[in-house]
């Protein structure tokens, strides 16, 4: 019997698991995919929003600002990439200036610090490639960028180290409510628990509606993105949003923590909760809109395009709390943008709710910090040389585009909740995330995964399930 079962190992579920792992509770995270960070958490803008966007007084606004304020410290404790690069909402037309001012005011009311409107000259000095039409911008120095995989994986690893169980490839199919416990039914058997946390992303409405009469509705809102080669790094240094107005809503242009340039997203409401396919129209729209706020965007340097789904709840608000008509069932639903930014605060809030309900005591031996995968490129020449002497696999470059060594890949596989698939390795180390998109390194990464896991290379998948890379051997059916 568990004290808490958390549905979903995305960033909200993992942040909740990590916060709850401070307490003397028996916790399990169930995840339908083969790894953490496989849904909305893996495909988004990777932005740490300042917090001026959400409506005054909303939970979204509160958790956004709180999450933003927690991020820097947390990125040090849990060792994930974060940069406070600042964001700019660019006004392209004098007529739209009142909207910019309204946004400024909203931000101040939400508690965003250092927020101010800057005029064209200052904007141009901050961003030399800004569009000629840009007249002013809302400048938020507290805006930032984060590695979404890095943060999600860090939460989950730290939770696991602190005793949280993770069950992958485990899909929830239903619930049974007993007198003082819940039975979570899954494709891998039943899980008895006192409390359930519903952090199921785009599926949160499905589970909510299984246990509550007060129905909610979540629309998968697809966003397409284009990621540009690292050679475009420095094209912009701030995250550049377009002020909605005469030129439409626009798309953002931002550096990533890894030095790429990211352009997106579109916003297309769909029905399919797994509909992460890009479309020609979506990509065309992106390319057309991306050049509005900046000039000379090197869009031909695209190395990949992808799509993610926002878990858009009809009321556009985070729904966090115990359900009145289903005691012990705690929703963590409608977590769309700024959900990634808010995750630290969401985790804290959900954990707080359960702590209050259970009166759980804190552990004495909670481990609050976690070391990420060692990136040898950050070492001094002497330290790197010493590392290679001890572990020569750090001199064996597997991914040439991102210069990722066998040492890093082995670390990614062997650590808690280690990588099992090519995508798992990719999200943890960036091997395969560069300009050749794993063309050269995938056969070698398969070899390392198979060796480390003690399985045949044919069993290695791209991302779990039936995503096999190798289907047989030469002439096996001739």
């Amino acid at each position, binding site marked *: 019997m568990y004290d808490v079962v958390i549905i979903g190992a995305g960033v909200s579920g993992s942040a909740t698991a990590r916060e709850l792992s401070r307490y003397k509770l028996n916790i399990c995270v169930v995840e339908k995919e083969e790894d953490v960070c496989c849904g909305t958490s893996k495909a988004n803008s990777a932005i740490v929003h300042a917090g001026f966007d959400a409506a005054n007084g909303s939970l979204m606004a509160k958790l956004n600002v709180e999450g933003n304020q927690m991020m820097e410290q947390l990125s040090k404790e849990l060792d994930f990439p974060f940069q406070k690069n600042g964001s700019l909402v660019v006004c392209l037309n004098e007529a739209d200036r009142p909207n910019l001012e309204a946004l400024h005011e909203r931000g101040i009311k939400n508690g965003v610090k250092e927020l101010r409107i800057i005029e064209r000259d200052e904007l141009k000095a901050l961003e030399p490639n800004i569009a000629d039409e840009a007249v002013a911008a809302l400048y938020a120095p507290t805006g930032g960028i984060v590695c979404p995989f890095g943060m999600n994986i860090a939460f989950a690893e730290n939770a696991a180290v602190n005793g949280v169980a993770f069950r992958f490839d485990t899909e929830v199919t239903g619930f049974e409510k007993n007198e003082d416990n819940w039975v979570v039914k899954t494709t891998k058997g039943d899980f008895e628990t006192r409390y359930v946390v519903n952090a199921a992303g785009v599926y949160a409405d499905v589970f909510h509606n299984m246990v509550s009469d007060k129905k909610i509705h979540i629309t998968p809102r697809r966003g397409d993105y284009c990621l540009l080669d690292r050679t475009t790094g420095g094209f912009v240094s701030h995250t550049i949003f377009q002020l909605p107005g005469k030129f439409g809503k626009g798309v953002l242009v931002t550096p990533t923590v890894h030095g790429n340039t990211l352009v997106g997203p579109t916003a297309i409401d769909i029905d399919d909760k797994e509909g992460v396919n890009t479309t020609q129209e979506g990509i065309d729209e992106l390319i057309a809109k991306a050049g509005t706020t900046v000039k000379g965007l090197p869009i031909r340097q695209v190395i*990949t395009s992808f799509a993610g789904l926002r878990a858009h709840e009809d009321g556009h608000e985070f729904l966090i709390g115990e359900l009145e008509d289903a005691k012990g069932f705690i929703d963590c639903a409608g977590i769309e943008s700024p959900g990634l930014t808010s995750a630290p605060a969401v985790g804290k809030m959900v954990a707080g709710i359960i702590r209050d309900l259970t009166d759980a005591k804190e552990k004495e031996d909670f481990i609050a910090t976690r070391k990420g995968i060692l990136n040898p490129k950050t070492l001094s020449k002497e330290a790197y*040389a010493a590392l290679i002497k001890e572990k020569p696999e750090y001199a064996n470059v597997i991914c040439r*585009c991102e210069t990722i060594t066998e040492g890093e890949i082995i670390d990614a596989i062997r650590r808690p909740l280690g990588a099992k698939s090519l995508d798992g390795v990719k999200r943890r180390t960036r091997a395969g995330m560069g300009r050749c998109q794993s063309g050269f390194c995938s*056969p070698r990464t398969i070899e390392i995964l198979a060796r480390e896991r003690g399985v045949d*290379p044919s069993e290695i998948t791209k991302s779990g399930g039936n*995503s096999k890379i190798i289907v047989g051997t030469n002439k096996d059916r001739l």
Partner: protein
Amino acid sequence: MLNYDIVIVGGGPAGLAAAISAKKHGVERILVLERDKELGGILNQCIHNGFGLHTFKEELTGPEYAGRFIDQLLEAKIEYKLNTMVLHISKDKIITAMNREEGILEIQAKAVILAMGCRERSRGALNIPGYRPAGIYSAGTAQRLVNMEGYLPGREVVILGSGDIGLIMARRMTLEGAKVKVVAELLPYSGGLKRNIVQCLNDFDIPLKLSHTVVDIKGKERVEGVTLAQVDENRRPIPGTEEFYSCDTLLLSCGLIPENELSRELGIEMSPVTSGPLVNESLETNIEGVFACGNVLHVHDLVDFVSQEAEAAGKHAAEYVLEGEKAVGREISIIATDGVRYTVPKTINPVRMEEEHVIRFRVGDVYKNCYVSVYFGTERIIHRKRPIVAPGEMEQVVLKKAQLLEYDSIDTITVKLEME
């Protein structure tokens, strides 16, 4: 710090031929750095034949062709390091590299030859919409899995792009028991060699659909099918022409990109057309003593031409080491226009050049019954009839030193196509 006269980055066909040639021309201290576990580069996975018709007057497989050069390299006692990744090259020619045995190496060279080869254009760079499941490979990745590791990456295959690797893989996958349903090509002509279309598609009844592209990929875990559509003259899909092919594999053979990250860091001037360095007649880049050859310079169709080019690069690098930069004569720019997309080299020095110099180039479209013309200044010097020229087959013209020396006042040489 290690010291060498010439360091060659890459031990594929270009690096091998350059090293052997440099040694022949009198340089002793040569080092080849190879990132893979053996010499030979991409040839090791090209197990089909057809290599070496020009160089050895016989048909060899890729590994056999490489083997001949590796033997020469060993015979000449040229040093090489395997599993060694070059991380950086500085302007003063200090090469930083890394391998398991020696850790991080710093090597001072007098001359550097860039021979890093090329990579394949990925699905992402092509902006192909749809899902992103397993089962989408570049043709070269599939070739490595099949030819070097014995694994079948799929059973029902659609190939996008009719570049040579795609054509070769259509045949290979068929021979290994997979069903290749169709090869789609965005352009109205194939980017591959004519002989490969005949031997790899026609002989196996694999249809080639020109002016077609992939407009959707279906399948959430593994590819379940792709939708092809015809494209108009602007290469945009024509609505209503969509056709679904069920398959578990999509192979991409949509062009090769020279791997010039090290060159860019070094500050080498690049051609936006070839994505390779701009070089003079000695295959020297704008950085003195740094030479380039093979697919890192411009993508070739035939390895024989890579070897020839690399031999020249090795010779010139040796001359540079032994005699220094020859500051004689002047550089004349070669202008590519009217259907000619680029030339290698980009400049030529009539005093420094050999008695004859081969200018290689590609055309931008298929042209029939045209003439390849070369102008020295405004005067037409060469006017050679060609029944057909195509982007998939590299072209060449030969310039003669004696003749060029007579035109000592010209600033430019122009290479173009003319219809009459």
